[in-house]
C-alpha cells in the first residue's frame, strides 16, 4: 500500500478525484450546499469549472435559503458619526470578516455620494441620484448595481414622466423562483424596476389624481413597446390599469393621501387616508388593486404590512395597526388566490403597559393619542418610537416581547451574495 500524507501530490496519488467521470463529479459538486463552496471548487481547475458552469448542472442546485452578506445602512440625515451616510455591515455568518472593502460603492459613476439608496433585492441595490429639495419627489435617474461583482447599469428617468410625482421606486426579480431556467441566469439580467407615479387629473380642481406603475425591464423587447417607438427608446413602459381598476376608478387626493406600509406576499401596500381601503401593487403583474379593510380595522391607524410566514410564500400577510390609546394589533389575511378575504386577529399589545419597564421609558409616552411611529420593520420584528420623541423599541411579532434598542436612525437594506454565482467556463 502506498502511504500518503494529506498533502498528497498528483505524482504520489495515482487516482484522484480529477480522474472521475463528469457524472460523478457533478454528484459530488451537488453536495456542496453553499454557493461559497461551489464557487471555490469551480475555481480549482478548468475541468471542474466546465462541469460547474454547465447550465444543466446549475439547474439541479437548490437555492440555499439565506446568503445575506450583510446590510447597507442608509442614514437619512447627515451626522458627524456617519459622514458617508452609507455603511456596509457584514452579517456575522458571512465569510468576509472585517473585509468590507468589496462592498464599497465607490465604483459607481461619481462615487457613492451622489446616490441615495432606495431599495435592495437579493444581490442587487437600487440607488437614485440625489435630487434638489424642490425636485425631491420627481422621477429620479436610477442605477442598479451588484456590489460583489462591481457591475452596474444606469437607468435614465422616463422622460415622459419627468414632471410627475414619484411615490416610490422598487427593485425586484420577476423570474424568481417561478421558472427553473431563470435560476441559471445572471442576476443583472432578470431584475425589474417599478416606479409608482402619481398623475394629477387634468381639469379637476380639487387635486384628484391617479397612480400608475412604470416599469423598467432590461429584457423587454422595444419592438413590443407601444409606449415609445423611437429607436433610442429606453426600456421604460407604463402598465395599463387592469380592467377591475379601470372600473372602480381609484383616485387619490394628492400625494400625501397615501402612505407606504411595506412589502409582503409579493406585493407592495399603501394605506389611503380617510378611506377603508389599502392600495396594493402586485409584484408580478405590476397592476394595482384595492383591498377593502374589514370593520374591525376601520378607524385604527395602519402602520406596517409584513410577510406572514417568512420566506415561504403562501399569500399570507400581517397588517399591524394601532388604535387610539396605542393598542397594537396584528391581523393576518391572505391575498386573492390564497384566502377568502377573512381577517384574523393574531396578536395584540398595549404599548404603554408593555414598554413601561424598559430603560429610558418616560411617563407620558403614548398618552396624547397620537400613534407611535414605525422606524423599521421586517418579517420578524417591528421597531417603533413614540410620537412624542425618539425612543426606540422593537416588538417581536412572534412572541410580542418588547426590547429597547439603541440603534441610530438608519434604514437597513439586506444584500445577498449573487445566486447563482457567476461561473464562466
Amino acid at each position, binding site marked *: 500500500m*502506498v502511504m*500518503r500524507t*494529506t*498533502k*498528497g*501530490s*498528483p505524482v504520489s*496519488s*495515482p*487516482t*484522484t*478525484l*480529477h*480522474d*472521475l*467521470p463528469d*457524472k*460523478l463529479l457533478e*454528484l*459530488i*459538486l*451537488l*453536495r*456542496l450546499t*453553499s454557493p*461559497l*463552496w461551489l*464557487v*471555490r*471548487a469551480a*475555481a*480549482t*481547475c*478548468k475541468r*471542474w*469549472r466546465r462541469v460547474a458552469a454547465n447550465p444543466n448542472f446549475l439547474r439541479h442546485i437548490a437555492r440555499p435559503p439565506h446568503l445575506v452578506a450583510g446590510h447597507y445602512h442608509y442614514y437619512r440625515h447627515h451626522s458627524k458619526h456617519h459622514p458617508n451616510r452609507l455603511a456596509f455591515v457584514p452579517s456575522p455568518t458571512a*465569510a*468576509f470578516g472585517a*473585509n468590507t472593502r*468589496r462592498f464599497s460603492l465607490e465604483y459607481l459613476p461619481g462615487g457613492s455620494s451622489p446616490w441615495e439608496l432606495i431599495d435592495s433585492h437579493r444581490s442587487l441595490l437600487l440607488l437614485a441620484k440625489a435630487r434638489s429639495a424642490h425636485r425631491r419627489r420627481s422621477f429620479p435617474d436610477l442605477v442598479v448595481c451588484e456590489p*460583489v*461583482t*462591481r457591475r452596474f447599469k444606469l437607468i435614465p428617468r422616463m422622460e415622459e414622466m419627468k414632471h410627475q410625482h414619484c411615490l416610490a421606486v422598487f427593485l425586484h426579480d420577476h423570474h424568481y423562483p417561478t421558472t427553473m431556467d431563470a435560476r441559471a441566469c445572471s442576476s443583472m439580467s432578470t431584475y425589474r424596476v417599478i416606479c409608482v407615479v402619481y398623475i394629477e387629473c387634468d381639469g379637476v380642481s380639487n387635486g384628484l389624481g391617479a397612480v400608475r406603475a412604470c416599469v423598467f425591464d432590461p429584457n423587454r423587447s422595444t419592438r413590443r413597446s407601444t409606449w415609445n417607438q423611437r429607436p433610442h427608446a429606453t426600456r421604460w413602459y407604463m402598465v395599463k390599469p387592469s380592467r377591475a381598476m379601470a372600473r372602480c376608478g381609484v383616485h387619490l387626493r394628492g400625494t400625501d393621501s397615501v402612505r407606504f406600509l411595506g412589502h409582503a406576499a409579493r406585493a407592495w401596500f399603501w394605506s389611503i387616508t380617510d378611506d377603508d381601503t389599502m392600495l396594493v401593487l402586485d409584484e408580478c403583474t405590476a397592476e394595482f388593486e384595492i383591498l377593502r379593510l374589514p370593520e374591525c380595522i376601520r378607524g385604527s391607524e395602519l402602520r406596517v404590512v409584513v410577510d406572514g410566514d417568512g420566506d415561504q410564500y403562501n399569500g399570507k400577510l400581517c397588517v399591524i395597526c394601532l388604535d387610539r390609546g396605542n393598542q397594537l394589533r396584528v391581523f393576518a389575511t391572505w391575498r386573492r388566490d390564497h384566502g377568502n378575504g377573512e381577517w384574523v386577529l393574531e396578536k395584540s399589545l398595549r404599548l404603554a403597559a408593555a414598554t413601561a419597564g424598559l430603560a429610558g421609558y418616560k411617563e407620558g409616552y403614548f398618552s396624547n393619542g397620537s400613534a407611535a411611529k414605525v422606524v423599521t420593520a421586517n418579517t420578524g420584528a417591528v421597531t417603533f418610537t413614540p410620537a412624542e420623541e425618539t425612543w426606540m423599541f422593537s416588538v417581536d411579532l412572534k412572541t410580542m416581547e418588547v426590547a429597547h434598542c439603541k440603534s441610530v436612525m438608519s434604514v437597513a437594506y439586506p444584500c445577498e451574495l*449573487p445566486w447563482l*454565482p*457567476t*461561473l*464562466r467556463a
Partner: protein
Amino acid sequence: MAAGKPVVMVTLVSSDGQSFQLLEEAALLSAMVRDTIQIGQGRGPAGIPIRNITGQTLSMVVVYCNKHYTAAAAADGDDAADEEKKVANKKQLREWDEQFINLEQDKLYDILVAANNLGIDGLVDLCCWRFADMMKGKSASEIRVKLGIRDDFTSEQRAQIEKDSPWVWSRTT
C-alpha cells in the same frame, strides 16, 4: 432475519480473480447484479464476474452490502410501533456509514467508481458526501492541495474568476 426462506448465495468475482460469497438479497442492492440475475445468469457456481474492480475494493463493497442488508432486514422484522427503536437503528447505521467511509482518498475513489459501476445508489451517495465534506470551508488552493488537483487556468481566466467572485481565494468557516 426472515426464517424459513431458502438461503440463496451468489458469488461475485473480482477482476483479479478473488471470489466473494454473499446472500443474494444483499447483493441485490446492486442494480447491476439485479439485472444479471433477472436475465437468469449469475446463480451458477461460476458467479458473476465484476470487471474493473479489484478484490480489495470489492471486499469493502461486500461489507457495505451485508451491513445494509442486515440493517434493512432487522428493521422489517421489528414491530412497526416501536418508532424510537427505528430512529435509534437508523442513527446507528449512519454512524456505521461514517466510520466505514472514513478512508484514504485513493480507496474512496476506487469505491466510488465501483459503486457507480455496480449501481449501488446508497454507496455512491455516501462517497460523494465524503468527498464534498473534504472540500467544505476550504479555499480553492486548499482544495487543490487536499485532492491533488493541478491548477491549469490561464492568467486571463484567473483574472476573470477573481472579478466574478472575488471571495474564492479567501478561506471561510
